[in-house]
């Protein structure tokens, strides 16, 4: 699992693109988009071990949460 930065100089532009993808959507539409996004990214990764490791990591509460 990659916990260090993997986006390089594109980080800000990718984050902005993610926000823009949600622009003008209702909350329900945004949730649906997120669900599709997760499914599509999972398919992009395509490796059960990596996906399960990331899922577990995402479930672990971060100190601020």
């Amino acid at each position, binding site marked *: 699992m990659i916990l260090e930065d993997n986006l390089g100089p594109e980080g800000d532009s990718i984050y902005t693109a993610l926000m823009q993808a949600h622009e003008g959507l209702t909350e329900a539409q945004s949730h649906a988009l997120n669900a599709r996004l997760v499914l*599509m990214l999972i398919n992009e990764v395509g490796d059960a071990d990596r996906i399960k490791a990331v899922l577990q990591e995402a479930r672990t509460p971060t100190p601020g949460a």
Partner: protein
Amino acid sequence: MAYDYAPFPYTAPPGLTAPEQRHPVVIVGAGPIGLAMAIDLAQHGVASVVLDDNNVVSVGSRAICWAKRTLEIFDRLGVGTRMLDKGVTWKVGRLFHGDKPVYSFDLLPEEGHKYPAFINLQQYYVEQYLVERAQELPDLIDLRFLNKVTGHADKGDHVVIDIETPDGPYQLEADYYIAAEGAASPTRKRMDLPFEGQTFEEHFLIVDVEMEKSPFETDSPERWFWFAPPFHHGQSALLHKQPDNIYRIDLQLGPETDPKAEATEEKVIPRIKAIVGDTPFRLDWMSVYKFRCAKLENFVHNHVLFVGDSAHVVSPFGARGGNGGIQDVDNLGWKLAAVLSGDAPAALLDSYNTERTHGSAENILNSSRATNFMTPKSPIEALFRNEVLNLAATHPFARKLINSGRLSQPCSLQGMQLQSGNHPLVGQSLIDAPLDGGWLVEQAQGAFTLLTFGEQTAPKVDGIRALHVATPGPDLARRYGSGCYLIRPDGHICAHFDRPEPEAIAAALARAKGQTQ
């Protein structure tokens, strides 16, 4: 035409008037599993008595999807082609989300197999054909209808059984007692064995209707599945065809349902009309049910053996109940025969437990996953499912995530005790292929078989039947590659050899019979 539930004859058993000799095997339950068990044992030369509290076949269609592997086992039991000829083989499946078609798939069978991926055939036909096959073996199968087992006692090396008949009670003794009494298994309850698993809260309505005119747009039978069908708010629905113009409709009803109120004509007829429109139909059978996935921890308890639904139950998605039970039979028959004839130690039966608890855990895993997909338990589960369905129309990857049941597949026994080596085919059940004038499944099952090809010469090894294919056809060559194979009587490949060397073959055979570890 409605099925004719002709009762099987009852005759007063000899045990009512004088004690009977101890029987090698008594099977409790003449459902598909108990009947197949008796035939399997008979074909290995073992006599059995089959006791059933009832005297008709399954009332209602119940299990209708019989998988390829089951048909291959039925082939060995002498009923495969009869099932195939009567059954409906469908090819096109269509999936709908609301009123929109999501995608359709062609179940184009791979060429070069005797049997298709599966057929639809009502359980009452399956049982009828099995009963008729059993009746062809009168010296080895003693079918006793209206014989209800009310008690049993394991005496260490045999079992004593209490039975009630219309003419009063009697007792039988058996070397082995096979419980094939279905999901409610009284034997399991008498022994107080935990039967643990997951219960699902959704109710399902299942209806068989007879219609002259096909509801599908083409003449060939299809399978239609809806998520959130327009005619049945927010749930799922399934429509498929059985022989005799009977159509099976499954409707998910949700957890807050009164099953008694739902299984009434007033409630059911409007639902059917919403699916089939003006097509005239006749209601044949209906039932409302909930289900669970559960299994015994151990299928072998000294001389009491559990098979079929009495050992494990699954949700119906994936058709793993009946099909899983037939694999129990396939696995147990030759082993019990070898133990009874002294050819194998009693410990061989432990491998039935290991191999089939493994198979049934796999069936439970698959059918629980399908059930969870079909019955989302929270808003977020419903959201993900909805988006999978939305993506599926345009994104092929999402189609593979849609789970309305993964059809029963034989499990792999790779790495388990009776198998030798780790060639990729070892542990798998044999893959069929055409032979000159027949099929591999017709010639490589029922006894330990050494399959050799081309230039190889099969050595003579005691207890092994040789099957030599001088010029393998392209299917056989592609599916088996090089070397030679030892195949168990239940069609599982238990060893692969680069060259047919007698010592190695004899060692693999001894291991497969549990004679060595």
